[in-house]
């Protein structure tokens, strides 16, 4: 099971600054565990971020994005109280979606 993301979306001026911390192992497939066996790759491939159903950012990631990925970006055209939704999907088909209101 995956843990909820920590998302903060704050409006300053006419722009919304988004900071998101996603809980994910981001296993590269190159790492060995203490027994010396390779840990299979497990990482987020797709991230889509929407505000009011409109895409504000979409990303594709490889295994070299850090564990528990952190992401910041800015966009314009949103008001306070509107909903921002982040969805990810990883290489094993797991997916998670979290929503936050813009403050």
């Amino acid at each position, binding site marked *: 099971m995956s843990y909820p993301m920590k998302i903060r979306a704050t409006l300053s001026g006419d722009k919304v600054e988004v900071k998101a911390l996603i809980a994910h192992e981001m296993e590269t497939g190159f790492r*060995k565990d203490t027994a010396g066996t390779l840990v299979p790759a497990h990482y987020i491939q797709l991230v889509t971020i929407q505000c009011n159903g409109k895409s504000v950012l979409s*990303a594709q990631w*490889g295994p070299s994005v*850090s564990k528990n990925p952190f992401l*910041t*970006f800015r966009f314009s055209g949103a008001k306070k109280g509107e909903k921002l939704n982040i969805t990810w999907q990883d290489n094993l088909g797991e997916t998670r979606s979290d929503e936050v209101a813009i403050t």
Partner: protein
Amino acid sequence: MQITRRKLLRLGSALSVLCITAGSALFRTGSAWASDIWNKNAFSAKAVDEVLKAFGGTHAQPSSEITLTVPEIAENGAVVPVIIESKLLNTRAIHILVEKNPFALSATFDIPPGTDPYIGARIKIGSTSNVYALVRTDSGFFITQKEVKVTLGGCGG
């Protein structure tokens, strides 16, 4: 017709097989959706030029209009903060590449209209290497680079 215990068992097992196949079919369409969009060619490329080719580009022009902020020395290669800001007109996508990682491409971001060409993320860097910010605009690809010295690698254990 009388339902014997044998018949009931057989029916049950047939049903469960059906459930499993239906379930796995569902799972498969789910992952196919991810791999359809995910640019496998670009992410399995080993060199920076190969990544550019996978994105359909032939030449990336060096540009000072892209600001790439990375630490000069990263003590821990597993968590290296990267900030990329582009002042180029009509920036459509930002890609982060690490020259000496097993696969050069780390992350790509598609920037729709209304979103600033500004991205902050954290990546893993295996050993001291050049980090590239590759930007796609309407008038082609632009690139800028910076070296990051890594004292503790981010890949492998």
